[in-house]
């Protein structure tokens, strides 16, 4: 069941094309994340759905009905902005009540109070209700803006990087809370972020946006394990995927400037890009390949080991701390079934 559908949306700002033929849909009760680097058109997509921006072509459907002619107020959506969304002249209570006091709804003040109290409870901001918003910390402010969205129970929540202005700790805890709220209220969220961890951890599905085009839509597993191209492969996963130029050599694939010989995909391409996730490069005593340790980055729970193999450097990730020192000889293996092949243009080669 699709809640919001975008059909071939195109948007230009003067000469610049912000969105080109963007189509995807968000299902009821789904947490959909739009992932992409800065300037990919994520915010523009949200603004078009909200009606704050008018697309040049294509249309937006709510439950199958086009809403292109509707004003933002009539679309029954909630928008959580990255910043600046709390009204500085009002208290927290008035901020939360503001959407309910809209002349469109004509809600009695008693019900407003009940709803505001409930939302404040969920977000644990009940003690802040009398405060002016200028006196709040960043985390509290973002809680209030999320609160202003959830008092309404709208068709869909549009969230524009709501966590990116917060510090790491706070971001983590709000991430969990947001997921919890979404699951318990079974609400529909379209969440925009450039942070791949947010995308992988929170979403039911991810849409990857690059320079105004949808590159791939899929579950976090799809995106991580079967990236549609090198852009997606590099966007998700930290540390980023090892991407090595390679060529076919006698039934195997030879990685340029390195001793790596890998099984070849069943295609006719002569040149490749081979993608190897760092966790698939395992330093083991009887590993098939050898190299030297160029650098180690201990992160506590795991350590990133940079292995120099010929002219290439491979990133490997090992659990916990490691005894490996810079300059050590190291043997390692590469999981052959987890390799990603891309053609020279960067598109995924489906090997089987």
């Amino acid at each position, binding site marked *: 069941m699709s809640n919001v559908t975008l059909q071939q949306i195109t948007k230009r700002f003067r000469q610049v094309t912000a969105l080109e033929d963007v189509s995807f849909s968000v299902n009821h009760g789904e947490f959909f994340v739009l992932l992409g680097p800065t300037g990919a058109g994520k915010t523009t997509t949200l603004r078009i759905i909200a009606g704050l921006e008018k697309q040049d072509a294509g249309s937006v459907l709510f439950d199958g009905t086009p809403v292109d002619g509707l004003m933002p*107020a009539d679309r029954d959506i*909630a928008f959580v902005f990255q*910043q600046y969304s709390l009204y500085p002249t009002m208290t927290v209570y008035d901020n939360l009540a*503001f959407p309910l006091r809209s*002349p469109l709804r004509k809600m009695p003040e008693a019900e407003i109070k009940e709803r505001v109290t409930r939302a404040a409870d969920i977000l644990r901001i009940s003690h802040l209700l009398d405060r002016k918003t200028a006196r709040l910390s960043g985390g509290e402010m973002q809680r209030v803006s999320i609160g202003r969205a959830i008092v309404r129970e709208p068709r869909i929540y549009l969230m524009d990087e709501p966590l990116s202005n917060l510090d790491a700790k706070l971001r983590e805890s709000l991430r969990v809370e947001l997921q919890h709220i979404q699951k318990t209220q079974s609400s529909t969220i379209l969440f925009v972020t450039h942070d791949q961890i947010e995308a992988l951890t929170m979403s039911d599905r991810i849409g990857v946006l690059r320079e105004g085009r949808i590159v791939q839509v899929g579950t976090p597993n799809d995106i991580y394990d079967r990236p549609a191209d090198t852009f997606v492969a590099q966007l998700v996963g930290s540390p980023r995927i090892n991407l090595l130029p390679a060529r076919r050599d006698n039934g195997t694939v030879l990685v340029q400037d390195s001793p790596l010989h890998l099984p070849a995909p069943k295609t006719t391409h002569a040149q490749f890009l081979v993608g190897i996730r760092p966790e698939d490069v395992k330093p083991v005593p009887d590993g098939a390949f050898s190299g030297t340790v160029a650098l180690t980055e201990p992160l506590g729970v795991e350590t990133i080991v940079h292995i120099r193999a010929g002219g290439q450097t491979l990133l490997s990730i090992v659990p916990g701390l490691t005894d490996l020192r810079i300059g050590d000889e190291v043997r390692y293996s590469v999981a052959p079934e987890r390799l990603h092949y891309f053609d020279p243009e960067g598109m995924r080669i489906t090997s089987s």
Partner: protein
Amino acid sequence: MAAQSPAAPRLPVNFSTRVDEVSSRARLARFIRVVVVIAVAIIMLIPVTWMTLTAFKSRPDAVAVPPKIFFQPTLEGFVSLLTDRRQLTTEQIAEEQKRTDLTWIDQLALSRGQVITGPSDYPQRLLNSIIVAGVSTVFSVGLGLLSAYSFSRFSIAGAGDLLFFILSTRMLPPVVVTIPLFLMYRALGIYDTHFGLILLYTVFNLSFSVWLLKGFIDEIPREYEEAALVDGYTRLQAFRKIVLPQSLTGIAATTVFCLIFAWNEYAFALMLSADRARTAPPSIPSVLGTGGIESAAIAAGSLGFLIPVVIVTFALRKYLLRGVTFGAIRQ
């Protein structure tokens, strides 16, 4: 008062010593600053003080050489400002002095050999000033606010050129256009009307108010209104509930500037009004009148003229201070 535990420090710890209160250099610098501020304030206040003193002087005291700082205060100036009088002959004075039904105002006039024939038109002029300046300020700020908002928020074809055009109305010296305006006003039948002056001052102030308010509205992030739009409000409701409260400082600053211009305007008022709509600025010098310069009356008139603007500015000072520093502080 909570009972002090033995471990609590004996001395209160809620004091701190600021470096600038101890260092002799900092103290000297502060002393110099205070002296300079006082000196500047005195220089600025001398004319106002002198005008106030003169308003309460008798005619000989007002023109005395050397100037008198200490004198017998009198309301003569105010009486001559607010009344029309006729000069009496010596016999008439003697006759008048026999009367017992004279008020203190009559006696004050009589002491100068005059009899009061009626109220002067100064109160009416002041009222005209209040009407013309007040209404034109409301219009120029109101219209300015709407157009500034539009320029700030919507993409308008040729917005830059339009803004320049609006500003360019300010480039011509007013004196150059007074004669053509006089002819136009007479032909249109709005010469010497409140409407005529209000229209002129509104148009004249509009360029200023659009530019000033646009700066203030540009500073208000548009996310606020967009949030209101998706929250179920129309553009106009969002403007009233979100933009308006946040632009109060700008509105106050613009109001004061527009009001001061309209209040003080002299040249247009002199040319385009005669009696019915004549405002205070061109009428105060006319007290100069017959039989010598009425310095006290002029000073009293100027003093009365000063008070309304001072009241408005004072009432808005809270917003003004914030308005002046507005652009400097980023949240």
